[in-house]
C-alpha cells in the first residue's frame, strides 16, 4: 500500500470538492477498494470516504422508477420486500453475491464499480494492461477459463464480475451522477466500456463524479424474472456464468424478453439476440435452449472457456423456464 491522505467529508458538497482533486478516489463500503490498495493494484493519493453520507443510502422500489441511492447497502436492498416480489432477479443478484458480511458493508454503487477478478490483474506482478497500461496482457497465453467470450480485445480479455451490474443490464437502467459542475444521467449500457484499446479505462465517469443513484424503469417483466448464477461452489464465489431473464408472458407465449449474461463479457452484457429468439415463441425446454444458444452465436471462445458457450446457453434456458413460472 502506498501512502495516501484520508478525508471524511461532512456533506456531499464537500465530497464533490475533494473528489475533484487529481489522484482522489472514493471509498464507499471499502470492501474492494481496500483490497485493491493493499495489493498496490491502485494507488490513489487521497481517499474521500463517502460511506457515511446517509442522503445517498435511501432507496425506493415502489414508484414508476425504482431509485437506489448509491450508498444503499447490498444486504438492505437484497431484503427489500417489494424488490423480492416485483423484481426477484435484482434481489437475487445481490443475495447470491459475496457473503452476508460483505453485503452488510458493501454498497450497490460500489458493487457496480468493482474491478475484474482476472488473476493477472490481481497478482500485482504479471504483465497487465489494465494495471500497468502498455505492459501487455498475461491472460492471452495464460489461464483463460475465467476469461470473456464477448467484447474482448487484443489488449484485455477479462470478465466484468459484478452480479448486480450484470442483472441491472437486463433492465432499463440508468445512473445518476453528480459533481461540483452538476448532475447528469448515464444510460447503464454506457456506464461501463468494453476493455478495448486502453483496458485501464472501465467506465465513462469523469473525474470528480460521484454516482448518487441507480434508476430502473418499472416493468411488469420484473415480476417474471430471475438471476441464475452458476458457480464452482455453492456460495462465496463469482459466477462461471450467470443469466438474467425477465419475461412478459401470455400463457406459454413470450410477449417480451429481457436477457443479460454475466461471467462472459468484459462489461455487463445484454443479449439482444437471446431476447429476439425468445420473443413470440412458445416457451419450452427446446425453445428456451435455442434462445440460449442464440445468445452465444457471436461468442469468441479462448483456449479454456469454450464450455461457457454451452453452459451459458443452458443457464439462459433454465432462467427463462424459472422466470416464466413466476406469474
Amino acid at each position: 500500500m502506498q501512502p495516501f491522505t484520508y478525508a471524511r467529508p461532512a456533506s456531499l458538497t464537500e465530497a464533490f470538492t475533494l473528489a475533484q482533486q487529481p489522484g482522489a478516489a472514493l471509498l464507499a463500503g471499502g470492501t474492494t477498494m481496500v483490497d485493491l490498495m493493499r495489493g498496490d493494484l491502485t494507488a490513489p493519493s487521497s481517499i474521500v470516504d463517502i460511506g457515511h453520507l446517509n442522503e445517498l443510502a435511501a432507496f425506493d422500489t415502489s414508484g414508476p422508477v425504482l431509485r437506489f441511492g448509491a450508498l444503499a447497502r447490498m444486504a438492505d436492498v437484497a431484503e427489500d420486500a417489494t424488490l423480492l416480489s416485483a423484481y426477484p432477479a435484482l434481489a437475487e443478484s445481490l443475495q447470491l453475491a459475496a457473503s452476508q458480511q460483505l453485503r452488510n458493508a458493501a454498497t450497490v454503487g460500489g458493487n457496480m464499480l468493482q474491478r475484474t477478478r482476472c488473476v493477472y490483474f490481481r497478482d500485482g506482478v504479471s504483465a497487465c494492461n489494465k494495471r500497468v497500461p502498455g505492459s501487455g496482457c498475461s491472460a492471452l497465453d495464460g489461464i483463460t477459463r475465467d476469461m470473456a467470450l464477448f467484447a474482448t480485445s487484443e489488449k484485455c480479455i477479462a470478465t466484468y464480475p459484478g452480479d448486480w451490474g450484470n442483472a441491472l443490464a437486463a433492465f432499463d437502467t440508468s445512473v445518476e451522477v453528480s459533481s461540483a459542475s452538476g448532475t447528469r444521467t448515464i444510460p447503464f449500457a454506457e456506464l461501463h466500456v468494453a476493455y478495448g484499446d486502453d483496458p485501464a479505462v472501465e467506465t465513462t465517469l469523469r473525474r470528480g463524479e460521484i454516482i448518487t443513484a441507480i434508476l430502473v424503469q418499472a416493468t411488469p417483466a420484473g415480476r417474471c424474472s430471475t438471476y441464475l448464477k452458476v458457480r464452482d461452489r455453492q456460495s462465496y464465489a463469482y459466477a462461471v456464468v450467470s443469466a438474467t431473464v425477465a419475461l412478459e408472458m401470455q400463457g406459454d407465449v413470450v410477449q417480451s424478453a429481457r436477457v443479460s449474461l454475466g461471467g462472459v463479457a468484459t462489461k455487463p452484457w445484454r443479449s439482444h439476440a437471446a431476447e429476439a429468439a425468445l420473443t413470440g415463441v412458445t416457451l419450452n425446454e427446446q425453445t428456451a435452449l435455442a434462445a440460449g444458444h442464440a445468445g452465444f452465436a457471436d461468442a469468441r471462445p479462448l483456449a479454456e472457456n469454450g464450455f461457457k458457450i454451452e453452459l451459458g446457453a443452458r443457464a439462459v434456458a433454465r432462467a427463462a423456464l424459472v422466470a416464466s413460472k413466476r406469474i
Partner: protein
Amino acid sequence: MDGSIGTPIPRRDAMAKATGAAQYAADFGHTGTAYAALKLSSVARGRITRVDTAAAEAVPGVQLVLTHRDMNQDLGAETFIMKGGHMQSSFMPLTSDEVHYSGQIVGLVVADTTEAAEQAARVLNLEYAAQHGFASIDDPGRTKNTVEKPEITVGDADAAMAKAPVRVDQEYSTPAQHHNPMELYATTASWNDGKLTVHSPSQWVMGQRAALATIFGIAAEEVHVVSPYIGGAFGCKATLLPHTVLVAAAARRLGRPVKLVVPRDAMFTVGSFRPATRNRIAFGAERDGTMVAMVHEAVGQTAEVDHIAFPGTNVTSRMYDIANIKTSESTIATDVNTPGFQRAPAEASSFFAFESAVDELAVALGMDPIELRIKNEPKVDPVKGLPWSSRSLVQCYRRGAELFGWDKRTPGVGSMQTDDGVLIGYGCATATYPSAMVPAAAHVALSADGLLRVRTSAHDVGTGAYTVLGQVAADVLGIADEHVRVELGDSDLPSGPMSGGSVTTGSAGSAVHMAAMALREKLLLVATAAKGPFAGRDPATLQFASGHVVGADGTAHSLADILKASPAGSLDASAEWKPDLMDAEKMQASLLGGFALEGPVTKTHAIYSFGAQFAEVRVDPLLRTIRVSRMVGAFACGRIINPRTARSNLAGGMVWGASFALLEQSQVDHPRARFANQDLAGYHISSCADIGEVTAEIVDETDTVVNAIGAKAVGEIGIVGMPAAIANAVYHATGIRVRKTPILIEDLLG
C-alpha cells in the same frame, strides 16, 4: 466432569479460542518491535543481476534491508527435512543470487511500522537475468526421475495381468494444492543475552529449536520456541520455514524484536504445498472378482532444488489380497518451492486414483463395489505377510453401508433421480492411514491445590491434543476433568514429537500415560507407607476414582490427603516413552529434536487405521453442477480417547476430501511458471453451503500392539477415501468417469 478415556468432553481450549483469549503467534507483542515485509521474486528461474536498495532505504522508518548480498556469513547450515534435518527445503533464500521459483524470498525489509516495511519492499529494486521456467509436471519436455529403491514387487504382476480375464488400466491426476490454514505464517523473534525466543505457529517446536540452534551457532537450550495455539497447520507448519530464520537474523542484527506476518499470497510460495500427481493404476481380476494383479506407477511433482515424493505405493499395495503386485515411483522436477507434507500427503492423492480404479473394476465386473472390496480383504499384509495389529475394514464397510443406506442404491448409471430429475449418485471408497510411532517425553505433577498438570512439547494444531492428553493422565489417576491443566507447544517442556503423520495422540499420549503411571506408583507408595492413610495395605488392592484412592473395603482418601503425607506436599513424575522395538539411542536423538519413526510396518506387525467412506452427490441434469448432499465415514482407529474430538477430526477430513474432489487446485500459469490463484477468492475450498450432512462414525476396535494406550491414527484418515468416493458417486450419477480432480462443471457438460 468425568474426563476419563472414552468420554466426549469438550475441548479444554474451546472457550479461550471462542472468546479470543487464546494468543496466536502474531498476537504476541514486545515493546520496541520492528516489523518486517518480504520481497518475493517475480521470475521463476534465473539470477539476480542487480540490487538497488536506495529507494527502499529512503522510506521513512526503514531500519534494515536484507538481500542475498547481506546474508551469507550469518547462517550456519541446516538440512532439508527429508535428509534428516528440519528445513522445509534444501534451498535457503537470500544465501545466493539464484532464483529457483516464482515467489521465492529475495529480500526482507524491516521498519518501524508494517506499512513502511511493505512500502519499502515494494520499491526495493531487483533486476534478474531470467530463464524460462516450468511449474507444472504437464509442461512438455519435463523429464521423469525414477526413484530406484522404493519399488515393491510381489509375485509377477505383468504375467498375472496378461492372463487376467478382466482388467482395468487408467491414469489419474491431481493438481498442486496449498494448505491455506486460516492462520497465516507469522514469526516474532527476539534476542536477549544471546538467547533467542521465537513465537511462530509450529507443529514441531523441538525441531525448530534444534534447527535454529544450528543455524545461529548457539546451544539448543538458548533457543525458546513458543507456539501454544495454532490456527490450522495441516503440515505446512511442520518444518522450519526460511522466513523464520530471516526474521531471527534480522532481529539479531537490529538488537530489536522483529515481527513478520506473511501475507496470504506469499503463503503459496514461502512454505510447502501438496505436489501434483499422476498415478497409473491397473488391476487384473478373475470374473468372480478375485483380484490377481495390481500395478501402481506413481509420478509426483517435486522441486528442482529438492527431491521429495509421496507416492502412496506403500499403502496401496497393502489394501487388497493380491498375489502379484508391482509398484514404481518417479518424480518430475519443476521450478517451484519444495513440496511438503499436507494432510495425508501420500494417501489422499494416491487413493483418489487407487479407489477410483477399484470402482472401475467393480463396474467392469458388474459387481457391487463393497462386495468386491470385501471379497479381496487380506488376512495379512500382502507385501510382507505380517499380521495386522488390527484391521476392521469389513466392519467399517458394514456399519457405514447401514448408516448410509447403501442398500437403496440401484447400480445402473443415472438410475437414481429426484422427482425433478436431479441425478443422484452413490459412491464409496476405502481409507487408510499408517500408525507410526515417535518417541516422546512428558511430565505430570499433582499439587496440593488438587490440580494435575500435564506437560509435553507436543502440539494442539486444532485437533484436540490439549483435551485428549489430559484425559490420558486423568484416566490413570481418576481425576475429574476440571482439575486437569495441560501445557503444550513450548520447547522448554519435555520433548514431544512433531505433530505430523497423525502421531500425537498415540506417541505423546503414551508418554503421558507412562508418566501418569509413574505418578500413580508414587502415590501408592506414599499412601501405603508407614505414615500414609493406607499404611500396611497391599497397593495392588487400591483403586483411583473420583479424585480419591479407594481401598477394597470402600475406605476412600482424597489425593490431597495422600499428598499431605508426602514430604513435599506434592508429587510429580517424568517419562520418556519409545515404541517397543526402537533402540534407546534412536529415542534420545529423536527427543533432542529428531524425528525417529517406528512403523507403520514393524518387524512384527503392519499397523494402520482403516475406514469406509460414502458419498451421495446430486448433479443438476442441465447445468451439471455437483453437490455433495451426504457423506458417511466409518472408521476403526483403535482406542478412541475422546469421541468428540476424534469425530471432529474425521469429519473435518471428510469436508476437506469434498474440497479435494470438487474445488481445490493451485492453478499453474504455464508461461510464467507460477501459481496463479494466490488468494482465498481464487483458491476455492468448500463453503458451508457446499457441505450437506456429514456422519463420522467410530467402529469399536481394540489394538494391543500399536502403543501403550492402544490408539491408532485419527488425524488424517478422514480425507483419504473421500475424493474417490465422490468421483465414484459422480460416475454413478452421470456415467462420466472423471480421472482428475477437481471435477468441474465442464467435465460433465459432455
